[in-house]
Each structure stands twice: as C-alpha cells, then as structure tokens.
C-alpha cells in the first residue's frame, strides 16, 4: 500500500516550515534512513529521514515552497510491488477542527467531567487529650527525637540519615540516643554531600522505605533542592499515582544567631509554593512531636522546618501513647476578639508575647499558629478574620513572596467583606541577614513591631 509522506514537525514548536530541497526524485528507491528532503524550520535546516522503504512516487510539494503546514502530504511512497507512477494523490479531506482540550483528529465526545480540586477534609481536629492526662515539660529537641524514636519502634522501614546524625548524636543533638537504640543500619551518618544523600533518601522512599533525611540546616538543602522538588514532589503526579515518595526532609530553618546571611534564611515560602509537597513548621514541643509523627506516617513527601533557636525551649507535652496531630490544620493558640495575629514557627512565640502586651492596652488579640504551610489552613484564618475583622501576619522571613503575602491574598480573595482594615505583615527586613549584632537585631522581626502593627490595624496608634 502506498504511504503518505507528511510534512514533519521537527521541533516542539514547529507548526509550518519551508520545504527547502528534495534530495530524492520521483522514481528513486528509498531505504529507511535515507535523507529525502531538507526542511527549514524557524530554528534550523533539518534533514527529513525516511522511515519506510519503497519507491518515491509523486512529489506533491515542490521544493522552495514556504509555509508548508505540519501534516501536509508532501509526497507518496510506493511499497513493494507497487508501481510508483500509478500512485494518486489522496483526496483532500476536511480538516478536523481542533477543539481545545480534545485530542485533535480523535473526534470523541466532549467530556462532561468538571475540574474538581480536592477540598480539605472536614472536621479534622487535634486528638482529644483525655481529662486527667499528665503533661511533661519537654524541649522541642527532645520532642522531635521522641517522635522519631516512637515511629522507628513502630515501623521497621523508618530510618534516619544525614550529616552527624549517628555517632556525633546530631549537630544540634536532635537525634541524640537514636544510634544506641536503633544501630547503624537505621541511623546513618552520611558524608557532607547534600545533593547525593537527598537523592539517595528520595530513591529509598521510592523503593519502599520511610527515610527521614536530616539537613544540618535547610541552608545546605539548597544543594539538594532539585531532589526535594523535581524528584520527591513531582513523581507521584508524573507517574499517574504509581510512585509514592514518603520521605521526610527535616532540619533547622530560619535565622539562627550571629551566623550571617548564608546560614540564616527561612525556606518556608519556597517549599510551600510547590504542589506535591507537605510543608510543616511547628512552634512548640507538643506540635513538633505530633506533627513529626504524622509526617513520618504520611504517604507524601514532607519538608519539616524546625528552628534552632526554639530547640532548647520547653513546653508541655501530653503523656499519651500515640500523640499524632493532623497535617494541614492551624491551631488557635490564644482566643481573642479584636485582632488576629497569624504566625508560624519562632514568630508564634513573638505573637503570643505581643498579645500579652496588647491585652495590657485593652486589645484582645487572637493568635493562630499555622503549623502547616502547605496545605495552608485557609478556613481557620478566614473564620478568625470573620470574627476579629483585622489581621496581622508575623513571619520570621523576608516579606517579598512570603507566607504573609499568601495570607494577604487569601484575605483579599475570600475575606474581603470581613476586613475593617488592610491586612498588615510584619516580617524581617528585605536584606541578607547582617552579622553585626545591632544590624541583625534591626533586620529581624520582634515583638514591638507586631504590637505596633496590631495597634495600627485597630486604629489605636
């Protein structure tokens, strides 16, 4: 049977081209791999190679023709036993209209399916702490360690890897004692090689394990961000749901103290912008424990942002066997009616201090800890805004394209009718963090700035 040779698309963007030159003539024998013609695209001159064997029949588009649409029949090829001179050009067929979103030339009925964006699970709350439960004052550092140890006892697939996590007992002592209990198979010291071990951790998760990859700080994870985003976050989607990647990337995030610009940065907004990731940034010990356990159990890749300056602070943790918190739910840390202060991580402490101060001035502030940055708990933020009608975001991080920016957008889009004042953000200054003590202090968010902003939106300044 005769074969139609069609104008090929030779690049992802090519829609038409110039048939520059025929290198074969009518009647020539063609074998697969022969260059039949030269075609000029917007980018280059390309060779058009034969895929089939036969005799070149009629040439339908003369050389030098410009603007030949991709898919146009440019020549006919006679197969074995056919007479090339007999081949007729195919009758022109009506072009099938390309309906957007439909396969061209497929001609199926238009789908009635609607785009359904998943809704957040309703009525998810923190587990009830039974009356009479005792509490133990625990540092955030210990709470994280306890969470990892509990999950490692529970699930043989869970292991920890990172720089200095084993014999050194953790650069910030978060993994203290794990090597003794679980041994070197499950508590793995890596070389200083973030890109490599983030990839190995991600691959191990694809292979069915549950790795916890510690970055000494998230500043060093920039070396590894390709695996966090391109490998871990996207693979489930790209595989149509076949390939899960249940890995936890954890470590301290945000400004430490006097370590200069390269070691002081909040990556919350970076990771929170990526579909396919879960991003958690807890403040106190109970949340650190309950959310770390949830992160390890999640089937999705989690970026778990801790804070070095908070590691040593102690908070009460309920003495419960299995304290697991829901991912994606904010927590109201302090109820109030006059103004809402939204914060996460270290800024929650500052917001609570600010609320105390505001109370002294007769302003009743509500403080929300977002806890999870992706998926963000819009409902809790908007419900609080509907109650207080005024909102301030406190964030230890740069203001531009921040979580604060996102909260402001949410309030504008879905809370506009409830606003009695513009939403205001209190962030770090928009500079690389300086070393000098006085400049560092100037650059970082503090309680007085939150108080000032809250008063401003209450028109009390």
């Amino acid at each position, binding site marked *: 049977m005769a074969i139609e040779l069609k104008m090929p698309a030779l690049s992802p963007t090519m829609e038409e081209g110039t048939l520059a030159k025929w290198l074969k003539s009518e009647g020539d024998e063609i074998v697969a791999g022969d260059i039949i013609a030269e075609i000029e695209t917007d980018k280059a001159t390309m060779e058009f190679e034969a895929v089939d064997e036969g005799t070149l029949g009629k040439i339908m588009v003369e050389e030098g023709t410009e603007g030949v649409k991709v898919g146009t029949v440019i020549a006919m090829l006679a197969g074995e036993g056919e007479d090339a001179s007999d081949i007729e050009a195919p009758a022109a067929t009506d072009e099938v209209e390309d309906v957007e979103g439909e*396969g061209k030339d*497929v001609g199926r009925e238009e789908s009635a399916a609607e785009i359904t964006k998943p809704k957040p*699970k309703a009525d998810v709350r923190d587990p009830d702490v039974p009356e009479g439960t005792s509490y133990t004052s625990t540092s955030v550092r210990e709470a994280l360690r306890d969470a990892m140890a509990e999950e490692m006892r529970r699930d043989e697939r869970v292991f920890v890897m990172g720089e200095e996590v084993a014999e050194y007992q953790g650069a910030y002592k978060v993994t203290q004692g794990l090597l003794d209990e679980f041994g070197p198979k499950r508590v793995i010291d890596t070389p200083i*090689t973030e890109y*490599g071990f983030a*990839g190995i951790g991600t*691959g191990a998760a694809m*292979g069915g394990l549950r790795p916890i990859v510690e970055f000494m700080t998230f500043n060093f994870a920039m070396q590894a961000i390709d*695996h966090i985003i*391109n490998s871990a976050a996207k693979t489930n989607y790209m595989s149509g749901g076949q390939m899960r990647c249940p890995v936890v990337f954890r470590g301290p995030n945000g400004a430490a103290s006097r370590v200069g610009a390269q070691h002081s940065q909040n990556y919350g907004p970076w990771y929170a912008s990526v579909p396919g990731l879960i991003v958690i940034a807890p403040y106190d010990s109970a949340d650190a424990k309950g959310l770390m356990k949830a992160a390890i159990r999640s089937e999705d890749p989690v970026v778990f942002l801790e804070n070095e300056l908070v590691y040593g602070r102690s908070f009460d943790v309920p003495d419960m066997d299995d304290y697991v918190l829901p991912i994606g739910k904010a927590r109201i840390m302090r109820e109030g009616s006059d103004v809402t202060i939204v914060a996460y991580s270290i800024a929650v402490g500052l917001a609570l201090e600010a609320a105390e101060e505001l109370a002294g001035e007769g302003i009743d502030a509500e403080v929300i800890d977002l806890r999870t940055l992706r998926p963000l708990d819009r409902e809790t933020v908007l419900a609080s805004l509907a109650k207080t009608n005024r909102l301030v975001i406190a964030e230890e991080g740069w203001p531009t394209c921040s979580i604060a920016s996102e909260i402001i957008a949410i309030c504008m889009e879905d809370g506009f009718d409830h606003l009695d004042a513009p939403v205001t953000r209190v962030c770090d200054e928009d500079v690389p963090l300086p070393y000098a003590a006085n400049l560092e202090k100037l650059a970082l968010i503090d309680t007085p700035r939150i108080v000032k902003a809250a008063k401003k939106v209450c028109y009390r300044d």
Partner: protein
Amino acid sequence: MAKAPKSKKSPAKSPTEDTDFVLHSLQDTLEKDRRYKASDEQLQHFYEQMLLIRRFEERAGQLYGLGLIGGFCHLYIGQEAVAVGLQSALTEGLDSVITGYRDHGHMLAYGIDPKVIMAELTGREAGISKGKGGSMHMFSTEHKFYGGHGIVGAQVSLGGGLALAHQYNNDGGLCLAYFGDGAANQGQVYETFNMAALWNLPIVFVVENNQYAMGTAVKRSSAETEFYRRGTAFRIPGMKVNGMDVLEVRQAAEIAFKHVREGKGPVLMECETYRYRGHSMSDPAKYRTREEVQDIREHKDPIEGLKKFMIENGSKEDDLKAIDKDIRKVVSEAADFAESSPEPEASELYTDVLVEEY
C-alpha cells in the same frame, strides 16, 4: 552504613601490594571471554526485543512528525543492545531499574506493553502515567522500573537509594542505574559513587556512552573520556563494554551482577554505543557528519550484527523476516491505540498531586 572496617580500607599500600583492590578484575574476566553463549531461544528473544525497540522508536518519531507526540522525545535507536543485554540478565520482580529521559527502550526491554508506552507519548488517559508524565516520565512499579527522570543525573542518586532499599531489606536484589556520557559530568554522580562504595551498595552504574551529550562530543566535554575509569577514585571496579553487541553486553552483565550479588559493592560499566537520531526531535545534527552516522549503521548496527550471527548459526532469513513482520504489527497496533485513545478527563488535573487527603 557503618560496618566492620573492610580490608580494602586498610592504610594505603603501594599499588603493587594493593592486591585486594579489584579495579581491573571484572574487565579481565570479560576480556577472557567476551561473548555470552546464548541459546537459540535467547538469541531469538534478544532479536525480537531489539527489533521491537527499533520499530517502536521509528514509529514514535513518525508520530512526533505528525504532531501526535509533543515536547521532548528522545529516541533509543542504535542503543538497543544495551538495555536488552543488561535487562535480560536481571532477576524479574527482584531487581530494580532506573534511567534518565531516554527511557522508552528500557521499558520495552522489560516487557512493558508497547500500547501503554505509546499512549503515554501521545498524552492519553490509557498511558502508563495516565498521560501526565510524557516521554521522559514513565514508571512501572509493578516491573520495578523506577523511571524515567528528566533531570540529567538525578537517576544516579535515586538509584543509589533504590540500592540502599535492597540492602536495607536484605532482599538480594540490585539496582541497575543507567545514565549517559553527558550525565557522567554531573556532581551528584560522584557523590553517589562515594556513598555507594562506602556503604557497599548493590548497584551497577551503567554509562551509556552514545558519544554526544546533546550536541557536545565526549572529547569536548570530558577530561577523562574513558568513563569506566571514573570509579577509580572511589575504588569502584570498571568495565568497558561494546554496547553495540548484545551478547557482549549480556556477558558483562553476568560478570557485574555476580560481583554485586556477592556483596562486593558497586560496579561501573561503560557501554560504548551510538544514537542514530538527534538528541531529541529538534536536533539539526550539525555536530557530526552524515558519513559518521552512516558508517556506524552499516558496520556496527546491533540488530544487523545479531541477525548476521544468527544466520551464521543456522537461523533462516525468512524466519527473521517473519519476526520483523510480527513486530511491525505490534507497533502498528500500539500506534493505533495511542492515536485513538481519549485524552485524560479534565477531572484528572488535580488527582495524584498528593497521595493522602489533608
């Protein structure tokens, strides 16, 4: 993983004393007997698989030309012997495979249905990734094929992780991690070599040296063009293999896999091969001459080479022609399926972003 110190980590010795360093031992074994003794049945199987890849890729190129396949599409034509030779030596259901974006051939060599691969290329619902991955992002966890990765070199570290999982689970499996001569210059490859050797991971690193990193010839991009030597700094033994001869590749696979399965740590294998087509579809191919391509096709083609060997060993030309005919039919059916399957439903847009609901 911390293990009892091995003798190979004892204090530095002079090269002549360093006898337990196995850098050359695998190559020596290969050179003693380069070609795998395949049964007639195996030969036919290799021939069928290589031909399936060739015809499938030719058809994919055609569909691309017709606008049915979009974006990037990297064809495996010329390199067929590498995937077929290596993967035929794996233990099915146990070992894992990972590769870069030139992945169609590796999937076909695994026996994955050509229909669902072609339907992925055309972006249809029936595609192996539901049309959400495309040419570069295809996976089959059922076959322990872990992709299909679009970032050059990423699959090497990910493969290290798959190998870590084999070791952790003590399942006796190994990971086969393919990458190209271009990816061989990525830093994470060497980070992974270091950890793989340090932890004795069960992994075979395979450099498919097709001579060009996109348009840059090996000698223009690489200070050390003998890629199999690049494990030396990590004490990883290297092998240099003629990747245009499926029987040599298979023989090398037997040697490398045995070494890894005996718990002796990773192997770095360089398969010298050649891609006939452009890097992707939009490749003006100004970096090499037509004569160069034609010369390889005429003298080193892996399929023609095997065909000749089989005929010398008693196969009938007509039988081989019949195989080609059958394969053309399989590929045609795959192409028809890929053209006529519907596109994904709009409601698939937001599925599979996350596994769980929150």
